[in-house]
């Protein structure tokens, strides 16, 4: 029988909680996109109201980590795990907030946005959801190779982000351009791009807790010229 059963149980509990939180955050991205594509203010409102669930999960995990540090004095990989968990939950919580930000724009829209949504936005959302899914998978299996792979996919999101910016700026500057629609959509594009950044952070923390090494930031090769 392995030693320190209670300790190992505590680590497993925290692991499971993070997974649960991650799944919830991933689901919220889908809900936010559905609300956007269907101009569904009611669904948007629910997303905003449910944000407290994710916040509570984060606080709960934080509390468990602190108790663990206080009573079990983890070292080496366990210590890195606890440290990384605190960072990972912070990033997950921020991704949740960004979904809420999207929901707020949908809720406050004075007219239908959905028919103006450029194709690049659902494509970005699809990429980001896939990244969250794979990154959670990498976390559960402690798969550093997969984590690094997901980390690299941020570039594709960046590329789409600049594409989206160009398209929306065109919409703004066209005669009769709809600023009331284009501006919220610009924000949404930006929110999705930020989500991918948080996922890359999580990937870095996965590599860190397993190996003790820091993943170097890769500079994006995305075409950043966004004025036509």
């Amino acid at each position, binding site marked *: 029988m*392995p*030693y*320190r059963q209670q*300790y*190992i149980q505590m680590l497993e509990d925290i692991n499971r909680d993070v997974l649960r939180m991650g799944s919830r955050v991933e689901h919220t991205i889908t809900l936010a996109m559905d609300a956007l594509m269907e101009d569904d203010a009611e669904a948007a409102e629910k997303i905003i109201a449910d944000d407290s669930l994710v916040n509570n999960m984060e606080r709960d995990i934080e509390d468990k980590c602190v108790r663990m540090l206080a009573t079990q*004095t*983890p*070292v*080496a*990989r*366990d*210590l*890195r795990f606890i440290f990384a968990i605190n960072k990972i939950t912070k990033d997950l919580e921020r991704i949740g907030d960004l979904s809420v930000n999207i929901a707020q724009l949908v809720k406050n829209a004075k007219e239908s946005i959905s028919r103006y949504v450029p194709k690049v936005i659902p494509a970005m959302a699809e990429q980001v959801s896939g990244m969250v899914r794979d990154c959670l998978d990498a976390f559960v299996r402690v798969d550093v190779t997969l984590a690094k792979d997901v980390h690299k996919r941020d570039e594709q999101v960046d590329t789409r982000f600049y594409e989206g910016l160009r398209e929306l700026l065109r919409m703004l500057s066209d005669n009769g351009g709809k600023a009331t629609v284009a501006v919220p959509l610009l924000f949404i594009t930006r929110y999705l791009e930020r989500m991918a950044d948080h996922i890359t952070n999580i990937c870095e923390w996965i590599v860190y807790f397993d*190996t*003790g090494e820091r993943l170097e930031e890769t500079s994006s090769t995305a075409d950043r010229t966004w004025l036509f």
Partner: protein
Amino acid sequence: MQKLLTIEKPKADIQDKRKDILHKNMVKYENSAVQSEGAGEKEAVIYTRDLDLYYGDFQALKSVSIDIDRNSIMAFIGPSGCGKSTFLKTLNRMNDLVAGVRIDGEVYFDGLNVYKDYDVAELRKRVGMVFQSPNPFPMSVFDNIAYGPRVHGLRDKGKLEQIVEESLRSAVLWDEVKDRLHRSALGLSGGQQQRLGIARVLAVQPEVVLMDEPTSALDPISTAKIEELVTMLKKDYTIAIVTHNMQQAGRISDKTAFFLHGEVVEMGATEEIFYSPKDKRTEDYISGRFG
């Protein structure tokens, strides 16, 4: 600390012989393949090479090669029976009197072979030892400290007083006992008795202090005092400490060696060992998953 105690200088021809041995050993050390990382920057005051130790048929140490740098603290950790205390004792020949002990390999202190080139009394004066449980002699505090210098022939009362005071100050015990120097040491608390033990070792002005679980019988406050003391002593002494308290190793030592079944599984900078150990067995042990 001012050198108050001198051992009779070896005669000239012995000194020459020593120089020869020293030179030969240094060449051997420099050519040795097992020098630890950064050996060039720090000088190893004690080192072992391929040290095997047998208690009868049982092999307690297997090819242990360790460098202990001057003015550093080296910690030895590992589960009970892993050989860490046995290893510590080989450094000042405390195993000599254990029946059935056989030692192969080499231990060098200050360039000379501990088992060939030293008189054991001289070795133990220069490589002192503090034990797990406090062991004051049943005599006054003063006499406890003066015991060693007296054994080495010091009779001058003034000098003895000076040594006693300086040793007690170095062991951060002076203020607590200065008014009761001539009362029995057995009346001191456990923590004070352990610091008395350290002061007793310091009184003969050693170069290396070996400590075998010096705080395992002490409460947290006394432990903190000893740890503070050990960290201070590093300035003037080289310290090797066996401890079951891994946080203690983490707090005070510069390097840590992890022993398992008589072998050194991993050895390196303490921070690295507790942050990112390379061997799975080290990881499991320091995380409390076995042992």
